[in-house]
């Protein structure tokens, strides 16, 4: 049981560090210094410490709760070194669907705000979800099929059995590439960040989010970065043999899309869909074809 408390906690801490890393990478690429070490924490504390906060109704608030809660639940389905959490009860498919709950919660919350920019942002975000989830599920299918199981514990065991040679990335390089591509879009990083589009639709879904609402989303972002990195690590990098290797892998995974992100402008919605359905999805299918035949 204690695992169930520790796992989200670890996820949050790692996620904070990832946010910092993301901002630092961005700053470095733009030849800036970047934020100080505890900047993500200060942001969250400040936002929760706001004196006046604007709510548009109960659903607005519950949306944030769902967004955090969904990820808190999702991270317990991802085994950490020494902790399996609920991975035995859920499995990969349940995890993928669990990770859609925050999107739905956020969408509901934004909808209640009655802000046109927010609604536009959500419509774009859901479209983007439609785009990146397809290569994502291709990858998930490929891995589950290859290891003959949807249980993450078994998948990790199979990968750790023979060192690097049995890692997912070595066995299924095409799928691993597709997964990385999909992750870029899943994290909403450039060039796939049309749905936040700060200058055009005022950060889209977040337009009416201030104070603890935004703070909740910052927390969610920590979880999101962690979840994306951890999922990829579990599927392709053999999970964590121990904490050290796990952390190295997770951070390395997240660093890749970050490094790419700050070099790009953004695609339009339909171009996102077109691109993601064309390249990662096709590569993923090709990867599955190699696996099956």
């Amino acid at each position, binding site marked *: 049981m204690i695992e169930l408390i520790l796992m989200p906690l670890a996820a949050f801490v790692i996620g904070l560090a990832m946010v910092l890393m993301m*901002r630092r990478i961005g*700053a470095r690429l*733009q*030849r*800036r*210094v*970047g*934020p*100080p070490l505890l*900047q993500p*924490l*200060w*942001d969250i*504390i*400040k*936002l*929760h*410490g*706001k*004196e*006046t*906060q*604007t709510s548009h*109704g*109960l659903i607005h608030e519950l949306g944030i709760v769902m967004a955090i809660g969904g990820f808190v639940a999702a991270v317990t389905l991802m085994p950490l070194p020494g902790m399996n959490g609920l991975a035995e009860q859920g499995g990969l498919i349940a995890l993928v669907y669990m990770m859609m709950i925050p999107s739905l919660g956020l969408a509901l919350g934004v909808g209640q705000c009655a802000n046109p920019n927010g609604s536009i942002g959500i419509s774009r975000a859901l479209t983007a979800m439609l785009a990146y989830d397809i290569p994502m599920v291709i990858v998930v299918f490929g891995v589950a099929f290859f290891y003959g199981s949807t249980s993450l514990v078994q998948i990790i065991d199979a990968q750790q059995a023979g060192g690097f040679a049995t890692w997912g990335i070595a066995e299924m390089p095409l799928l691993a590439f597709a997964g990385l591509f999909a992750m870029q879009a899943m994290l909403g990083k450039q060039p796939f960040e049309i749905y936040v589009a*700060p*200058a055009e639709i*005022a*950060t889209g879904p*977040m*337009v*009416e*989010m*201030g*104070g603890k*609402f*935004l703070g909740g989303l910052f927390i969610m972002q920590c979880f999101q970065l962690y979840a994306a990195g951890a999922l990829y690590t579990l599927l392709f990098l053999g999970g964590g043999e121990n904490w050290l290797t796990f952390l190295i892998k997770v951070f390395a995974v997240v660093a890749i899309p970050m490094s790419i992100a700050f070099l790009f402008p953004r695609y339009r919605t339909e171009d996102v869909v077109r691109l993601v359905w064309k390249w990662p999805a096709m590569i993923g299918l090709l990867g599955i074809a190699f696996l099956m035949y």
Partner: protein
Amino acid sequence: MTELIKTPRTGETLPVKAGKRTNPLANVFDELVRFAQSRSLFMLHYCTGCGAIELPPSMTSRFDMERLGIQPMVSPRQADILLVTGYVSVKTLKRIILTYEQMGSPKYVIGICSCTVNGGMYWQSYATAKKLNDYMPVDIYIAGCMPRPEAVIAGLRELMENIRQGKADSWKDYYRHYDHYLGHQQRLFGETWQTPTDVIAEARHYGLFGPDTLGTHTALLEQHQRPLEALEMKVDIPELMARR
């Protein structure tokens, strides 16, 4: 003619009581929160005039505001600082006030460029507001036409220091002396002036109500105010209501 450093007030000035802060987090970790507030500033640069051109250099690689924890944000809901960067026409002022009222407190206003101080080179223009702090409390003025990024950063650091020391609480002033600010707004925009934010109700809700919150101007406002009560969720089942 009024002194810039003194906050103009119409009514009698009362010392601001160190009232209980509404935020439970803030009550416990007052210092921590204040530090976090000073180290994490999201600025909404409302680009009203030429001064906005000095902000990109302040943000980008040469001066890099982010190392101070300052980030640009586009929605007033998320922002802490309202940067008014240049001359303020009457029509723009309405939007500035709307935007200011939609920001979450604690919020800070920085007037950049001389225009926000006294109208600058537009001092004679019938369409440019002269004194920004007539319409909303201003924390820092950064004068110059235009001030260089160094000056902007210096001003921001000044503000951060004020926040950390708990001195930058002029946002409370807007609630406590709402009548005063509203009066100036009405003088420009006419009697029917109204923003969608119900400032008086907010002041009541957060315990920021002061003796000067209400006055003749707010009375005028109430005469032709469209109701702004939030849409409360109500479970209004006819049968059950009838039985009651």
